[in-house]
């Protein structure tokens, strides 16, 4: 997709399908994909970005209640004006395909960031195949107080669906915006969302980005989110993963200025055979920046959680503060966790820490609660809630926090 080649959707669908089938996707022999086997996903036959209609009910069922602000809806990767509401003043929200024509300067200035990580075949496939996505532009000095919710719906009622959304979010100097991203599959067939989002956070700007991944159990997401931050800016990325088939999140943040703050929060609460793999990378290029990463996971049944966190501190990035923490609780013998923190530091005046744990439920604490008359199930739920709470309480959007709390509560009592 680029400015000129936004050809009719149907025309290139067949082509895209062939191209996708011909690509070589990583196997588990690849270091970055060691614990996540995507072969079964890519061997599947998908229909690519099939245009379809969903009823108002089907769409609104996917909405998270209690969250104010605008809702933007994509169906099978195509922007649905009908189901979207864009009311916030002073900012531009439109389909990226449209923006390529109408906001050429902004899009060209921010589209196609360099990556700190090896570009995966999935990201390449997205670049080659993507036809649409969201474009959000927040002008200088503008603070958008209500969040913008993005719903990427896949209609898999009749056939397996693959989508390749490509999104661009630009927050200009001293602006503020909050975005919530939700993927949801409707229907029984398989779905694969191969999503790429680029976020540009200019000097002094503040961006909060939330991902809510509570998919159908046959739905997979391969996500790549690239963020570039200017000086004294603030970015918080929060990834909540609850259900799906295979979910792989690549979060890649470049700290391109001094005195900025960058937060990465993650929670994966998995059961069944859900497989969630979070790969994060934060690149400290300038002095006096602060990054803080906290990912927590609880895995049950035959699920698997994978965490790989990279921190690069370049030679010029003196007085860097970089923290990373990954904590896991394994609830069953068949559940697995693989965690790998990676710190690469070239500067000498830095404060860095990393920690990771893989543990079982604290039996002593569990017994203590039971000794106070609380049932075992209830005690377990309380401890799990407390464990997850450390991430959940960092969610600033109240409606979203309540929603996540409810989901956790349901899960723990199931």
């Amino acid at each position, binding site marked *: 997709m680029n400015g000129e080649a936004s050809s009719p959707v149907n025309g290139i669908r067949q082509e895209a399908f062939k191209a996708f089938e011909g690509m070589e996707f990583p196997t588990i022999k690849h270091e970055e994909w060691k614990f996540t086997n995507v072969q079964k996903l890519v061997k599947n036959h998908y229909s690519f970005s099939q245009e379809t209609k969903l009823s108002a009910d089907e769409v609104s069922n996917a909405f998270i209640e209690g969250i104010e602000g605008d809702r933007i809806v994509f169906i099978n990767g195509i922007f649905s004006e009908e189901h979207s509401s864009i009311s916030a003043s002073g900012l531009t929200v439109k389909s990226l395909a449209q923006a390529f024509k109408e906001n050429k300067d902004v899009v060209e200035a921010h589209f196609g960031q360099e990556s700190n990580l090896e570009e995966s075949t999935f990201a390449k496939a997205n670049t080659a195949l993507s036809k649409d996505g969201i474009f959000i532009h927040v002008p200088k000095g503008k603070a958008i107080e209500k969040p913008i919710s993005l719903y990427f719906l896949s209609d898999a009622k009749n056939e397996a669906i693959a989508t390749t959304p490509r999104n661009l979010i630009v927050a200009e100097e001293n602006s503020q915006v909050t975005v919530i991203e939700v993927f949801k599959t409707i229907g029984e067939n398989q779905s694969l969302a191969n999503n790429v989002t680029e976020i540009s956070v200019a000097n002094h700007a503040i961006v909060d980005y939330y991902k809510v991944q509570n998919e159908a159990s046959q739905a997979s997401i391969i996500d790549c989110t690239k963020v570039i931050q200017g000086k004294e800016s603030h970015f918080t990325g929060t990834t909540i993963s609850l259900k799906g088939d295979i979910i792989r999140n690549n979060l890649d943040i470049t700290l391109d200025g001094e005195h900025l703050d960058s937060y990465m929060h993650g929670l994966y609460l998995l059961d069944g055979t859900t497989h969630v793999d979070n790969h994060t990378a934060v690149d400290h290029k300038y002095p006096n920046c602060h990054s803080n990463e906290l990912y927590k996971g609880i895995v049950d049944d035959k699920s698997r959680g994978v965490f790989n966190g990279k921190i690069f501190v370049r030679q010029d990035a003196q007085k860097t503060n970089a923290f990373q923490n990954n904590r896991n609780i394994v609830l069953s013998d068949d559940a697995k966790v693989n965690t790998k923190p990676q710190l690469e530091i070239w500067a000498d*005046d*830095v*404060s*860095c*820490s*990393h*920690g*990771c*744990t*893989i*543990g*079982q439920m604290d039996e002593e604490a569990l017994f203590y609660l039971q000794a106070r008359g609380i049932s075992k199930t209830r005690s377990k739920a309380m401890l799990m809630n407390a464990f997850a709470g450390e991430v959940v309480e960092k969610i600033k959007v109240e409606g979203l926090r309540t929603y996540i709390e409810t989901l956790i509560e349901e899960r723990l009592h199931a």
Partner: protein
Amino acid sequence: MKEAEEKELLEEVTGSEYKYGFTSDIEEDRAPNGLNEDIIRFISAKKEEPEWLLEWRLKAYRHWLTLEEPEWANVTYPKVDFQALCYYAAPKKQKEVKSLDEIDPELLKTFEKLGIPLNEQKRLSGVPVAVDAVIDSVSVATTFKETLAEKGIIFCSMSEAIKDHPELVRQYLGKVVPVADNYYAALNSAVFSDGSFCYIPKGVRCPMELSTYFRINAANTGQFERTLIVADESSYVSYLEGCTAPQRDENQLHAAVVEILAMENAEVKYSTVQNWYPGDSEGKGGIYNFVTKRGICAGDNSKISWTQVETGSAVTWKYPSCILKGDNSVGEFYSVAVTNNHQQADTGTKMIHIGKNTKSRIVSKGISAGVSQNSYRGEVKVMKGATNAKNFSQCDSLLMGDKCGAHTFPYINVENSTGQVEHEATTSKIGEDQLFYCNQRGIDTERAVELIVNGFSKEVLNQLPMEFAVEAQKLLAISLEGSVG
């Protein structure tokens, strides 16, 4: 300005110089320099030791001869000439000392300068501390012996223990640190002259802190003391150790061995404030502190906790360790190591998890200033049978200035999948920015450095018994005076 005034002022300004650098004029009894089997026989004879101990020493010596001096530590120093050292120097033997009045007044003065509360009377108002003082490897006075004896606690010099409780000594000596353990441990086993011995019987909670003060006084001597602590089932003891030495131009060797055994349900807390002479600001002189300290949690539910505040010595090489053999046993290591000027420290710990549900905790704080080098070296090993073992390690380094170095060498070996090992590390610098920030809040620079350093070390200092903590805080501030700004 008058010369005298100027001198006084200068002394005041440079008051951070080593405070304990006096020598005492005490009559000495010493062996000729050099090391051979005859010297060992001489030491053993001097101490009227039984035959088995002489044999033990000779075995250690013969083994030592086959060993190479280790070089893996991150320290560099001119090699020690073991033949130039004196292996036995003792204050001239008096008759049995029954009360403090009979002790050499010069010696008492020495202790007074050190601030050692040998005089029990003075201590009656405060918290009682039983003290064993060791000068140049020989224990010279042990206080509160009788009070302790009432509870069945044995606290005396190693020499006395060898005479009065040979069966206990023979049973436990070298059980935790075998004679062949390492180069310096073997040397110590061959030539150790004295040290402290402590036995806490079953079910007894030692009612007071036990304390040993070590001082090297004589020139050209090595100090090789040997400490053995045995805590029998369900007992508890807290043990303190303090060290000083006079200022001398040449380097002196200190190669001690400390062994701790904790039986079922027993707990031993071992605290050290080490302030051996670190050498002058040019790096001349100072103590080589090559020490082997190890404890074994032999019984279930036992606990050994090491706390150390290391401010002295030219070169330190020391890894107080815990072997967690009993199920549910706990090992702890809390350390603050300060290096300034030309000091070098390579210190840390080993936690060997053997029993089930064993837990260990490592908190290491390194502060480097001047052109010093400060290394943390720690090993956490979880053996195959150690199900549900847990370890938490935290290693923080604080740098002052940009000519010093801090290094961290964690070794983690986990052979059991239920093990949970956590490691956290941070490095930070005291910089102009931090000091200016404090200044802007009305705090002057000297107070600011004290605040920052004590804050950084707090977690470890909190582990020390109250009175030691205050002393240690002062020591930290003194050791670092003048290193910023």
